[in-house]
């Protein structure tokens, strides 16, 4: 009795078709990349997901009515000139023309001011992240923030975070060995691939290396019940407890407009907070970008304009209990790292160490605020 979980995966057997334009665009007052990303999402049978970056579009942002052209940097990604930062009180409008000549524009968005983050603190949560069945839990450190809501205006917030974790393992080879600093290959007779299936060898980093993680959840808030009051104990993120050593988190608090808040709130409600006894039936997520020639076309995404305040927090993890899974294990489907055995070859000792190759999710530069 009651042995079964009460949430099960379900095959809805849907026959999907059509395509949707997705606009992911953001302007902040920070010295950072200000970008517009245009993608066509093509609907395919369940779980097959195809997106096509829209290249060759003519993209401009009107700042207080004056047009600034954006340059396509990677496929489908358009950027404002380097070093451009938004300014509080300025008005922004996104306009673009597709290669096919369709014209789109967003509503005019005014950059709202944002209060600073007064305090960041954490609590260890042994049942932090649950799967939908609520059978497996990943312990987390829940990050809380305090801030002071301004009394003179309606304010809307969004929190996101970036996490730096120390990474000890910089490269893995399957059925091969590490050749040089960052390539897998064959190196017989000096060394041989792991004979034990699934034939992995993993290599330590030569120098310090950090992996970056980003918040995925949409986390928004309106001051409608607490205008002008301190906002206390708002959970701004849940950091998975994968390794015992400390980590660095940057929390971003972004101001939203009322409409942007409504958009993200609805997005959150029907994709993250559902599955309860009384869900709200989901509705189309129509953002603030429209096709000038076709009012009925649904464009997903919100051209988000808002000032940002940030705070870096050293998560020492001293309050954690239990043994963490291990960062490497979490990233590699629970597999423990397997170092290549130590041998001496005519060219020196093996195994070699690997380089920390920078990417969107990895850096060899020590982040500001890192301790240890």
């Amino acid at each position, binding site marked *: 009795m009651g042995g079964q979980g009460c949430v099960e995966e379900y095959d809805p057997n849907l026959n999907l078709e059509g395509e949707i334009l997705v606009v992911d665009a953001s302007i902040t007052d920070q010295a950072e990349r200000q970008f517009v990303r245009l993608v066509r999402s093509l609907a395919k049978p369940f779980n097959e997901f195809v997106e096509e970056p829209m290249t060759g579009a003519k993209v401009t942002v009107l700042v207080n009515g004056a047009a600034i052209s954006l340059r396509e940097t990677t496929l489908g990604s358009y950027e404002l000139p380097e070093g451009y930062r938004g300014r509080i009180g300025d008005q922004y409008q996104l306009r673009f023309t597709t290669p096919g000549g369709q014209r789109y524009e967003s509503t005019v968005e005014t950059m709202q001011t944002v209060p600073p983050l007064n305090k960041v603190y954490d609590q260890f949560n042994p049942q932090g992240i649950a799967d939908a069945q609520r059978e497996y839990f990943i312990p987390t450190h829940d990050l809380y923030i305090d801030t002071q809501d301004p009394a003179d205006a309606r304010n809307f917030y969004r929190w996101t975070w970036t996490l730096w974790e120390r990474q000890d393992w910089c490269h893995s080879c399957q059925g091969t060995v590490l050749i040089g600093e960052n390539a897998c290959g064959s190196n017989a007779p000096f060394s041989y691939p792991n004979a034990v299936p699934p034939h992995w060898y993993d290599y330590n980093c030569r120098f310090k290396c950090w992996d970056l993680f980003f918040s995925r959840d949409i986390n928004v808030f309106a001051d409608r019940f607490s205008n002008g009051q301190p906002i206390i104990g708002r959970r701004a993120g849940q950091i998975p407890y994968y390794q015992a050593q400390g980590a660095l988190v940057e929390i971003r608090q972004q101001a939203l407009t009322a409409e942007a808040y409504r958009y993200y709130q609805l997005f959150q409600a029907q994709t993250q907070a559902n599955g309860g*006894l009384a869900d709200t039936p989901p509705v189309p997520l129509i953002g603030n970008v429209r096709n000038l020639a076709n009012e009925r076309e649904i464009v997903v995404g919100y051209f988000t304009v808002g000032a940002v305040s940030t705070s870096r927090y050293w998560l020492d993890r001293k309050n954690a209990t239990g043994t963490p899974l291990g960062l490497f294990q979490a990233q590699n489907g629970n597999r423990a790292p397997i170092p290549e055995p130590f041998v001496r070859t005519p060219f020196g000792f093996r195994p070699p160490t690997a380089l920390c190759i920078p990417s969107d999710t990895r850096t060899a530069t020590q982040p500001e605020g890192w301790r240890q």
Partner: protein
Amino acid sequence: MNRLLLFLTALALLGHRASAQMTYGYTLSGVVRDSTDGKPLVRAAIVVDYNKSVTGTYTDAEGRFAITVTSGPRIVVVRHVGYVPFRVVMNIQRDARLDVRLGTVSSQLEEVVVTSKGFDRTIRQPLLGVSQINIKTLQKLPSAMGEVDILRGLQMLPGVSSVGEAANGVNIRGGTTDQNLILLDDMPIFNPTHMFGLFSAFPPDAVSGLDLYKGNVPARYGGRAASVLDIALKNPSLEKFQLTGGISLVSNRLTAEIPIVKGKMALLVSGRGAFNDFLLPLASKRLNNIKANFGDAAAKLFWRANDRNTFTVSGYWSKDFFQTSLLGSLANINATSTQYDHKTLNGMARWFLAINSRLNLQTTAIVASYVPKILSPELNSSNKVVLQQGLLQRQFKTNLNYQWKDHKTEVGVNATHYRLNPGELLPGSSPSVNYQKTPNENAVELAIHADDEMSLTPNLAVSAGLRYSYFMNLGPGLVRRYATGESVDEVSVIDSVRYGAGQVTHRYGGFEPRLGIRYSVGPNASVKFGYNLMRQYLQVVTNTTTPLPTARWKTSDEHIRPQISQLLSAGWFQNLNENIYELTLEGYWRTTQNVIDYKPGADFLLQPYPETQLLQGRSKAYGLEVMLAKKKGELTGWVNYTFARTFNQVDQGASFRERINGGDWYRANYDRPHTFNASLNINQGKHHSFSFTFAYSSGRPYTAPEGYIGYQGRIYPYYNERNQERIPAYHRLDFSWNIYSPSMKDRRWQGHWTFTVYNLYGRKNAYSVFFRTENRATKAYQLQIFAAPIPTLSYNFEFK
């Protein structure tokens, strides 16, 4: 379980001629006759049951039989087609004689009481779509976790459905849950369930029975658009102290009937409490982390002052506390969890005056209060932020009834005052939250009505009623005006008008005709026709699949028009085989104006102008219901099939936010085309009864994605049309076994056990299908409520 199997096997064998031959023992002989005329019954079966084997014989042409049996206690059963079987336990020590008189099944009283007032009420009465259910019938239905459940029992009837096992109410003939007027001894019930729909909120031992009006509704009822569920509390015994009670997995119950002045005044007190939430994870893992307690109580004081005057005072109380991860938290309050707490407190006083043998007057005063709360405990603090709502209904009504020679007439007046607190945010000692209050709503509903039931010819009877209802929304309040032709929102406000206390801000009113016609086609069959118009001025506004107990109630006002529903129904009613069977066939067509829907992303919480969040449209529902009931005999029960559809249409303007599915008709959340129910009850004499129920219905509609999109590093589902897919079909078999102990028959204390298995074959019925974005990807899931067989043993007792 082994004993159970044994009984079932014995049951199967009893009907057949047993072939075992006895080679030793004593002779049991006798004559079997008809109880009324004494004529011998030919080929009646005599079955003797002993120690797992069965033997038997038949009577001869003179009704005589003789059978050889071994010594010892034996169960002897005598049965004949069309007669009530006879059972006896005999201790055979020598040759024995047994003369039996069997009564016919058709002369027996009805067992299954879906209709209880007179054997042919269904075909004689001019009303159709009326079901009367005795509480005994409900008590025999297998129940989830041993709780006798009125709403779950009702769903075994045609035309009554719900969105699923955790639905907070039932849908009757295409109506929403708030379109049912639920009365408990005339006191309105605004939240009929405990634990978010898992259990009904009526103390089962205090209820005597209920009338469900899903077709014709008498003109004395008003205020809701779809149906009336009139539940009566038991009258306490004026003569004898009685105590009944029980213990089940979920709750403990106790009911006392206390004569205060013998023959004149008595009190009924009944209570139920459920504090066993630690047991819930046994039923489902998903119920882990749930904190849930509930209780309800009812009391009724009855005083017969003299032959002409009686007074009744009733009260009802209900309370729930609930904390679960299955319900969302309050947006924009920073809390560590979310707790729900709701309370009902109702009272009623009635004076019944028999002016003479034909004329009587009934005057009733009612107060009903419902207060739901959402509690949000704050981080590192003992403070809880409370969002409180409140609904207070005060009502006065008086009816005059006159019984003519061949018809009866009722006239009455009714006045109801509503006071709604739509939301009040109480910060307590919170440093973050500000006190907020949405202005109270005040309204008055007045009605007069007249009903007449008459036989025009021996074959033709008519029930004609007319109600006039008049509704006034009252100040104080600020009523906005919006630009005509524009979407009602913050932008289109052009003006606002302030009304003082008691000033009428808006009025609605109209006639509500009710008509029922019955024409008898022979002594055992009739055709019926019905028409109803009902107006509803108080409704739930919600955007969830089933309203939460905390859903907001809203009176009609200048912007929210009352719902008006018209129902046409017709039926064929047939009694078969000397009233042992009853066949009914009913069809209906219902249209409703001004049904309430909501804009995408609507938020009603502490919203002083809910019209900016709401849309109104229309609804149509039609269906065909077939039911065959066997009302007498050892095996009683019913089977029914319903075909029913419900569609809504919302097209208030051209913009996407003002129409649903492009303004086309779309399926209601509870649109389930095919439903089949069966309920069987097998009475095994004084010792046992078995019940089986089976329920099947098409899955309800849900909104499935039409595609997937990548946005800000994750893959999300993309939705467009509402309710275009269906969740899997629902079906379930339940079983219950009542074990009585006849040896205690003459004692004051009598107990019986009920063993129930809900969802016998462990069907994992989906309550909902949802798409959750986790990490980067989106997965589809189904949420199941009772996904495994749930066996329960409960004990019930009676002390007289």
